């Protein structure tokens, strides 16, 4: 087979899809990169830098770099606001039908512009950078493409915090998720409270929201939320040394390298309390009362905070079922795609298979691209 003529469809334009597409293009394979939303980059392109006096290796800037690589690569053809409609296997290739996706503009990204409301991309490499409602309606590809293999990189959905109703997400202005927090920092250049735009003095992070929860049937650790919350807390503390930050947790999971050093340092800056709060009540001035079973007291106690951040977990992507039906890729007991690789030319990369950090997702996408190329005979 001549690799020049080979083509792979990558479904999903988050960090897994971007990396897989990029790795394929490195070996001269053409890629149709299909993204359901109006912007490339997935969740992680919205993440902000967590550096304190030094880089905390969160990986957010490597997403930015990968996006830059991909949008400048002529071998990668991007379809925004497009989804998979159908797939037919013919001999050794796939006939794929794409259709315009039906999707709302992301609420968190809406800004007011001179010519009306528009959703704003997170990166300067997002093209278009602004999408209005009418732009949106004109976007999307309706076509058929022939490809030799398929990589599904459809990512995850964050846990819906409304399912933990006692935390009052959506009811109390200053109960937010980690993703909300990212947006606040991006827009303001620092962490401020949604209710009054002031820097919060007392901040709580609640870990394992939706993960490690037997009652919900979610028997997995999301792996990224402990590293995430600790890095975030460290960076907030660095910007605002007066902030008092508490992390409510079950077990602390490791960041990647140098964790012992990192953890010792962060323990000096934030308070760790081993319990998961029961519920949250509003107080005056939009402050919040957080009730929990304090470990060293053995009885319910409560404490007030200016801002509560919910570390929502990594859940299977919303479209997993639909895509599984079209592609016949099996789903595992947790609802993620089964990770077994395929000899049929259908592969899965990244968090569509289960939780993972930016770094491990990129490594996994590289490996998946390698397997796809092996299937195509480009790699042996």
């Amino acid at each position: 087979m001549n690799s020049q003529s080979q083509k792979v469809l990558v479904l999903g334009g988050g960090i897994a899809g971007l990396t897989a597409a990029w790795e394929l293009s490195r070996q001269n394979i053409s890629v149709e990169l299909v993204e359901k939303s109006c912007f490339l980059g997935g969740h992680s392109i919205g993440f902000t830098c967590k550096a304190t006096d030094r880089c905390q290796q969160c990986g957010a800037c490597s997403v930015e770099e990968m996006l830059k690589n991909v949008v400048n690569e002529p071998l990668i053809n991007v379809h925004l606001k497009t989804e998979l409609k159908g797939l037919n296997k013919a001999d050794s290739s796939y006939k794929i039908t794409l259709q315009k996706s039906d999707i709302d503009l992301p609420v968190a990204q809406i800004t007011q512009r001179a010519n009306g409301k528009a959703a704003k991309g997170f990166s300067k490499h997002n093209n278009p950078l602004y999408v209005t409602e009418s732009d949106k309606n004109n976007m999307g590809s309706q076509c058929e493409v022939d490809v030799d293999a398929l990589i599904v990189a459809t990512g995850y959905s964050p846990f819906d915090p409304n399912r933990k109703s006692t935390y009052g997400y959506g009811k109390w202005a200053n109960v937010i998720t980690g993703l909300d927090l990212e947006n606040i920092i991006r827009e303001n250049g620092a962490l401020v409270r949604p209710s009054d735009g002031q820097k919060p003095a007392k901040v709580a992070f609640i870990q394992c929201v939706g993960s490690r929860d037997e009652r919900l049937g979610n028997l997995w650790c999301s792996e990224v939320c402990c590293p995430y919350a600790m890095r975030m807390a460290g960076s907030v503390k660095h910007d605002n040394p007066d902030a008092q930050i508490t992390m409510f947790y079950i077990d602390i999971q490791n960041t990647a390298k140098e964790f012992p050093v990192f953890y010792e340092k962060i323990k000096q800056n934030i308070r760790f309390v081993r319990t998961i709060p029961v519920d949250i009540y509003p107080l005056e001035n939009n402050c919040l009362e957080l009730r929990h079973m304090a470990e060293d007291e053995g009885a319910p106690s409560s404490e007030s905070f200016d801002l509560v951040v919910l570390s929502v977990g990594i859940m299977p992507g919303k479209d997993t079922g639909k895509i599984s039906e079209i592609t016949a890729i099996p789903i595992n007991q947790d609802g993620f795609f089964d990770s077994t690789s395929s000899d049929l030319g259908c592969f899965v990369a990244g968090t569509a298979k289960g939780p993972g950090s930016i770094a491990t997702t990129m490594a996994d996408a590289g490996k998946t691209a390698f397997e796809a190329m092996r299937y195509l005979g480009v790699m042996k």
Partner: protein
Amino acid sequence: MITENCSNMVDISISKDVLVIGAGSFGLQAAGQIAAQGYKVSVIGAKTACARQSGCTSEMLEKGGVNIMQDVSIEALAGVVGDFRATLTKNNEKVESIFGAVVVAPQYSYSPLNAKYGLTLNDKVMTLSQFEAIISSDSEKMKAIQNGGEGGAGANVAFLMGFAQEGEPLLTGRVLKGALAVQNMKGCKAYIYAGNVKVGANGLERLFTQGRHAGVVCFKPSETPKVQQGTDLLKITIKDPVVRSDVELTPDFIVVEEGLVVDKQNLDLCAKLRVDTDLDGFLPSNNVHRFPAKSNRDGIFVVNSSLDATNAALRVKELIGDGTKKVVADRAKVDENLCVICLTCYRSCPHGAIFWQNGAAAISPAACQGCGICASECPMDAIQLGEFTDESLRANIKDAVVSAQATQKDAKSEPTIVAFCCKNSALEAFESAKLFGHEMPVGFKIVKVPCAGKVDVEFIMKAFVDGADGVMVAACHEGNCKAERGNTYAKWRVNEIQKRLELMGFGKNKLTFTTIASNMAKEFACKVNDFAKSLEG
């Protein structure tokens, strides 16, 4: 595929031989995957895994695609990517071989941590590895666990983890499996004393839950358990926070955790290869730009997992291709007539791109990344970058000041600020800030540099002389520099000049050093605005 657009490209040849250091399972996996691409792989280092099970085929092993060389060690590595010269030794015999790429698969060993609990290893107190060996056998020792409890009943086994060290998921998985195995033996009971249960890997939370349902008891005391080891008695005591009293257990066996240790061999290897480690001594350095599988030296890859092994194979294939590679000829060049062989450039190059030729320093176009650190550090000004010559940078500084002043309408209303922006981070952030419409002072202009490490003292002074009111040097955050230490060099130079400015009576706050990530547009604008304000005030 995009290739660099530069008229000054040259073809260099890359050796198709690859050296893999470390014959553990990840090293052998990398070897198999690289050999499959048609390259000849030599593997050295202690062999601790089966080559076939790691994906090396019989054909590779028999026909020399993968050549496993036992008892061979590496003495030195010279040369650069595409043309590494390795001195290998076997029985005191030395051979020099050429390799296009080197893959390091460090083999770390586990060391028992019983001493940290005040325990001595014996029949009743064992390491996790010893325990695993016992339960996978049918030995007397296994029977001792099965019937080791009171009156010949099943034994109580306590596992200790997470107090002698933080631990990691791999270790946790082993303990959870071990505890479940004990619990499933008739009459046996498993107890886990844990610091943080590291369930952050696929399947571990499920395994943990399964164990709890089977009856494994897990304590997570806030302090290290007190462990007593008598002649016949083992006793573990913890404080229970809820009951506020001591809880004691007298297990029949104790299984203690083990920790990964960095042995001297690995550190020696890093020194030989000039590959940086992280703070704990593990390879490679902790820098997102290296993940996965890259090191600070082009052509040297580091493999710590199966994922890394495959990614290393991808990188090796991309690097070697069919044995020739197009590279930019003059990223950096030494003027032989000026060089006095002071070694400064050799020591400061983060990518190991400098070697010696014709009595002067020479730069390998294959390995050089064009950061310019050497050029700025060279006391003789003997090194010039192709894209960022000193001359063009001086002209850009002048232009920046002139155009900043031109934007000031009536007289001078706002300060003229010149920022040297690293193209990897600050430049990206600046361009985003502009695109997103974040306001910045009108008198603010930037000069693009390949790395903050290329901001010479002379350039900063020139910006002032040309008429800048303030100068900013904007680099990557510490630990995020692609040239590893370019930001550190820049910071040193800024500190130096600040001292000089102060002596000259200008005040040091006209010059600032800052770090920023490429994705932080708003933060960049805020930093510039704060600096402008500080100049006015």
